[in-house]
């Protein structure tokens, strides 16, 4: 199987919105290679005609009655927020100046 470079780990980290230090990238590249090498064993199993399982016990279309039930108040929902303002979550800017 493929070997995983430091650049690939950096790419994955960008996809996952995860800042990694240079030494973390180096370390993870080596470890991922090892782990992927081990888990790649799954490819030895002949499973072409086997359906995939995504959930241990398949359940479909679980509905409930459409009735009112108590929910969180705005204050309760905001109580654990890093920052709140005027009854809303305050977040850093989401659009750059060039946009």
């Amino acid at each position, binding site marked *: 199987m493929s070997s995983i470079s430091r650049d690939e780990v950096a790419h994955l980290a960008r996809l996952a919105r995860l800042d990694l230090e240079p030494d973390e990238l180096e370390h993870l590249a080596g470890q991922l290679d090892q782990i992927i090498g081990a*888990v790649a064993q*799954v490819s030895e199993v002949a499973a072409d005609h*086997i359906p995939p399982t995504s959930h241990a016990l398949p359940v479909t279309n679980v509905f409930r009655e459409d009735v009112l039930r108590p929910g969180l108040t705005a204050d309760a929902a905001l109580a654990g927020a890093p920052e709140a303002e005027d009854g809303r979550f305050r977040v850093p800017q989401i659009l750059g100046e060039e946009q």
Partner: protein
Amino acid sequence: MTDQGLVRRSAEELAASIASGEVSAVEVTQAHLERIAAVDAEPGVHAFLHVDQDGALSAAAAVDAKRAAGEPLGPLAGVPLALKDVITTADMPTTAGSRILEGWQPPYDATVTAKLRDAGIVILGKTNLDEFAMGSSTENSAFGPTRNPWDLNRIPGGSGGGSAASLAAFEAPLAIGTDTGGSIRQPAAVTGTVGVKPTYGGVSRYGLIACASSLDQAGPCARTVMDAALLHSVIAGHDPLDSTSIDEAVPDVVAAARQGAHGDLAGLRVGVVKELGGDGYQAGVEARFAEAVELLGKLGAEVVEVSCPNFTYALPAYYLIMPSEVSSNLARFDAMRFGLRVGDDGSRGAEEVMNITRGVGFGAEAKRRIILGTYALSSGYYDAYYGQAQKVRTLVSRDFEAAFAKVDVLVSPTTPTTAFPIGEKVDDPLAMYTNDLCTIPSNLAGNASASFPCGLADEDGLPVGLHVMAPVLGDHRLYRVGAALEQALVSEWGGYLLNKAPELEERR
């Protein structure tokens, strides 16, 4: 000094003493709080991340008031419990062992928490765990490791090491764990306690901070099989707030534990899984396991060998499926709505703050699994890794189905080895992952499984667990087998296995 008499009693005995008025619930809670104060602080056990002294005492006082008013009490009313810190509590912080949730107080109780409170169970506090329940040693907690009461230099298992250690250290008679790949059963095995992973969907996941949603299951941890059964029946049952919750009657686990305690397993067919043993298994583990199997035979069970050929591939499949789900579940920690936010200095945008916060807030194992999951799900690799792992998952379930057509329960050792020294495997993920070799198949297939103490390994004097696997909704079979084994071993040993654990030094 702690009142050793009270803290060493079972939950069943404590509930009876409280109901009869021999002791008050407040006295019982006080004794456990004193024990925690005496043995938990570093360099002690460190099972707890948070102790709620006031909340526990007032919950206990409410049980005493109810009794005084002549109101009926539930079977575990007034009994203290340690709650794994991955289950939300509206009156206590919930950290999941992560810096990213340090100090976070959830706005709601998990269904499990609500059921405990309704039953009059006294929540002492929140127990330590590997970050987001990812690990087998509790060393991945951002708040320092928990130590095994049998040997403070060794790991208590993980991820629910805090819950298991609190039982083994007599800090609580009951605890709640969660099990994604073995996090209830492996800590139970290495601490000489009882841990049950119910059938997937048997206990609500509402308010359980997700590790891998298709695998996570909360369950009871205790020192005796009957205590686990009593706790199981408190927390189990259908919950409309969890769409994967099973809408069927909860198996009568308490009756099964009573039946098992008579020590008669006549008519029970037990299958020893051929693939779960041999190379890589510690001699002392294999010896105790073989004796336990022989004992089940003496109690009347019919023992046969069963082959589950695809179990060999369960571990690699799990280490593709679990991180894939983890990478997706942990995306919710985005520094916007709850938890940590780092780097919001007015000049940085939301995405940059998110990147920085996640880099600072997550520990090494969380990062490893996020990257691994992102890789397994990325285009070009999806079919070869995640897709193929899902097919293997089907094959593992089919192995179980074929086996349960022949036998009522399957058995194996719970873990290949006893508790290892703290630090030994911390940067060797592959070695760490093999701890869950025997427990993972049941998470993939969703069936019920448990670990019961079956002795001490000769080479190191540390506890060994017998792993019992039952079919989906066959949870009661676990308790029948566990209770039969327990009564036979307790009479052979002249007491519970934990009586052989060294006394912990009380510091006050």
